[in-house]
Structures are given as structure tokens and as C-alpha cells.
């Protein structure tokens, strides 16, 4: 019956797929795994308590929240929005590339933006659409506009995902370091940052070229 302890993994997968409450899913998976491994309940609570306390370092980012809240209420977003608005005369692909750079740099300094809500919807997508219509002097069709919207959202995700682990106190870096420690390997947060640099740079170059190619594709669009 050794295989029953794999139920924990199954619970994690099913729980996340069915969108159950994530906190509950993880705690239940831990309980199920422990009980099916033949651990008694008190011992299991001890393991859970001890490992949760020992992994407090993962949540060190809470300490950065007061500062982030303070600069946010004093115009961090307003300043960034004003700066981006100055980009008007560029081609669609170039606007996307500058936003990609901003997004990756924000990642380096641990500035977490809700990019899709705060930038893509109100600012980036409308500017890219305007630039595309302007540069070729045509009115875009609905499906062409859909492509631009999709690309704008995609650029935010690319920059966000592959640069966030460049910040030493990011949730991802701390989680990696802490999980590896639980699994028996000492992994330094700074080492993770250093080893994330190559993929961050490759992503930047790749998406940069992808956006310039987007400019060329747009030239072939029919418009209305």
C-alpha cells in the first residue's frame, strides 16, 4: 500500500486544476501524505509545524511591503505612466520592446506591477494599436486588433516571468532556495539570481526580435 502516499500529489494536481482554495489544498495534501505514510497524527503536526517555522525565510518579502506601499501611494504608477506616454511616435514593435525592457528592469529591482491591469489595458495595448494604424495609415480589422491585444498581453507576461527571479527577495527565488533546503541541498538565493541571468537575457533578445518581426507582419495586413 506504499503507493497510497502518492495521493498527496494527486490532491495537489486535482485541487489546482479544479481551482479549489490553494491554501486548503496544500495543507490537505500534506496531511494525507503523512497519514498514508503511517505517521501518527501528533508526529505529523510536529513535522508540519517545524517545517513551516523553518521555512519562514520564504516569506521575508513581507518586510518589503511597507516600503512598496509607501512609494505606490506617492506616485510610482503615475510617474511610470507619464514616462510611457512620451513614447508616442514609435512603431508598434518598438513600443512593445521598450515596455519589455521596463518590465524586465522592474523585475530586477523587485517592483512588482500588476502589468495587465495597470499598464497593458489602459496604456500599452491602446498605444500599440494607435501606432499600428498610424504607421501604415489604415484602419485595422477586429481580428487584427485582437492580435495586437494578445501580443501586448504576451509581452507583459514574457518580461514578468523571466525577469522576476533576478530579484533576490522575490517569492520565486526564496521558494526555490527554501524548497531545495528541505530536499537536502543548500542553495543560496544569490546563486539562483546569477543562474537566472542567461535565460532573462535570451528571453529579452528573442522577444525583441519577435516584436520587430511583428512590425513587418503588420505591413502585410489588409486593414478594412
Amino acid at each position, binding site marked *: 500500500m*506504499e503507493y497510497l*502516499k*502518492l495521493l498527496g*500529489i494527486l490532491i*495537489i*494536481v486535482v485541487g*489546482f486544476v479544479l481551482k479549489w*482554495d*490553494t*491554501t*486548503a489544498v496544500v*495543507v490537505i495534501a500534506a*496531511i494525507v501524505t503523512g497519514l498514508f*505514510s503511517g505517521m501518527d497524527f501528533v508526529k*505529523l503536526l*510536529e*513535522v508540519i*509545524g517545524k517545517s*513551516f*517555522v523553518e*521555512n*519562514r525565510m*520564504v*516569506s*521575508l518579502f*513581507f*518586510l*518589503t*511591503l511597507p516600503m512598496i*506601499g*509607501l*512609494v505606490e*501611494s*506617492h*506616485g510610482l504608477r503615475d*510617474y511610470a505612466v507619464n514616462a510611457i506616454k512620451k513614447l508616442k511616435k514609435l512603431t508598434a514593435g518598438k513600443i512593445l520592446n521598450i515596455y519589455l525592457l521596463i518590465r524586465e528592469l522592474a523585475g530586477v529591482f523587485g*517592483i512588482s506591477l500588476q502589468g495587465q491591469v495597470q499598464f*497593458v489595458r489602459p496604456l500599452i495595448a491602446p498605444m500599440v494599436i494607435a501606432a499600428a494604424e498610424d504607421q501604415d495609415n489604415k484602419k485595422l480589422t477586429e481580428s487584427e486588433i485582437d*492580435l495586437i*491585444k494578445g501580443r501586448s*498581453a504576451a509581452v507583459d*507576461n514574457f518580461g514578468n*516571468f*523571466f525577469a522576476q527571479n533576478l530579484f*533576490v527577495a522575490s517569492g*520565486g527565488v526564496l521558494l526555490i*532556495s527554501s*524548497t*531545495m533546503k*528541505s*530536499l537536502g541541498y543548500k542553495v*543560496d*538565493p*544569490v546563486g*539562483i539570481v546569477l*543562474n*537566472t541571468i542567461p535565460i532573462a537575457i535570451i*528571453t529579452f533578445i*528573442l522577444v525583441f526580435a*519577435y516584436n520587430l518581426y511583428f512590425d513587418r507582419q503588420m505591413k502585410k495586413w489588409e486593414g478594412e
Partner: protein
Amino acid sequence: MQNTINFLLSILYALIGLCMAVAGIETLRDKTNKVRIGTAVFWFFLAIIFAFGDWIPAVVSGAMVLIIGILALFKQIQVGSLPKLDPKTAQEGAKRLGAKVFLPSIVLALTSILIAQFTPLGGQVGIGIGAVVSLILAIILTKAPTKQVFKDSQRMVRSVGAPGVLPQLLAMLGVVFTTCGVGKLTANMISHVFPAGNHFLGVALYCIAMALFTYIMGNAFAAFAVITAAIGIPFVIAQGANPVVVAAIGMTSGYCGTLVTPMAANFNTLPVALLEMKDQMGVIKQQATIAVILLVVQIGLMYFLAF
């Protein structure tokens, strides 16, 4: 030195506990939140675990984690209503501070890296000291009164809410998996169908499994604990690969799965709604090519950098 580090860390954890206790008190005062009692209990338990975790018996901390899980199961943990940002303060700040508004964030990143690299205190203490220094700088720059600092702190901590402690819970789950030998068991199962001992195949299996599990679950953090225990360690690290390289690239390989899964609603379906797109898969379609290329690149990177 280890004693000094532990002492500094316990101060930092106590500070986090304090922030969480404040979030608990403010939650209780938020009468619009129908489940404010459960949410406040969540914050107070966390505050106790953070501030006094080293001194209270492990079984008590474990019971508190279990109760947090039960509260979450019955939807008793909700953010409630947070104080709104004042547009006037924001506009004035942007005008007066200009680019300096980014200074505290830059100081935070630099301080924590410098302390990690050039002092024996290590990365964790570095983050803590960086956070305190950058907060003081932000207070000086914005000339914010204590009341404003308090308001912004509790707003941020409460807005992070339960998802904020998810990474720590997943790390806990990783320990439970290891203690129960889950990794060993899955490794045995996989080794029946997959040859161990080949560096390249091990790396490819780990990176693809990270992307695939992230695709299924929609969350790379959750996939990381499971797949690293089950595949990353037995098939890659146990063959002599450098654990730092494997772990760092393993996580970003998972992100390739995030790029193509409708399960990652925040990133792939929320924008579709926000941007009023016709094509439900419009964002994913723009990401798929890059996701595949990046996964292949990362398999290569891990193979060449880790061995």
C-alpha cells in the same frame, strides 16, 4: 557568526509578525468583511508563528497551520475592503519626486545583494536589512507621516493575503514529501520506464516535466516542489549536476508551461477579458512559439551549465 545571523533573523521575523498582527487588528475593524473573524485568526496565528516560532512547541505551530487550512477550506479567509489610494497624494508625489520615486526599490535590491555578497551575514539578513533601510529612505523622501506609513503597510499586507503565504506552505509540503519518501517512490516508479544515468535525458525529462506539470496545475511554484523531489533530484542532481543551476533553470522551465495554459487565469485569461478580445486563446497563441523555443533553450542551458 551563525548566532548573530540567527539573532538578526529572529528580529526580522518578529517584525513580520508585527506587520501581520497589525493586519489582523485592521481586519477585525473592517466591518464590511463578512468573514473578518476567520481572516483575523489567520493573521494572528501567522503573527504568533513568525514572532515566536522558535519557542513554541512544533505541534502547536502545526495545529495552527492545520486550522489555517481548515479556515481556507471553508472560505473564511478574505481580503475585505482596503483603504483606497488617494489620487491627489499620488499625483503630487509623482510631480515632486519624479524618478526618485524608484530610489527606495533600487536601494532595496542593491543593499540586499551587497550584504549577501560582501558580508558573512548572508542573503536572508540582507533582504531584511535592505527592507528596513529602503523603508526609512522612502519615509524621508515622501515625508509621509507615521499614520500614512501604517496605513500603506496594513493595506499591502492585507492585499497580499493568503496567496502570500502559499510559497511557505509549499516549502512545508516539500519537507513532508521528503520525510515520507515520496520522491524516492516516484523516482523508483519512473526508473522502471526511464533510464537513469544519462545526463541529457535526465535534464530533458526534468525540464519537460516542470513545464507539463505547470501546464496542468497552472502554478509553477506548486509544480516545483513536486517535480524537483520526484525527478530533478534523482535524475539530474544525483548524477552530479550543480543544484543551484538545476533549481534556477528548473523553475523558469516551469514558466514555459505557464505561458501556454488556460489554467493560469491571471496571466492568460484575465487579459482576454480586460482587453475585450474575441479570441479566448488570443494571448496563449501569441506566447506558444516563444514558450517552446525557451523550453528547448533551457534544456540546453541546464545541460551545459550544470555539468
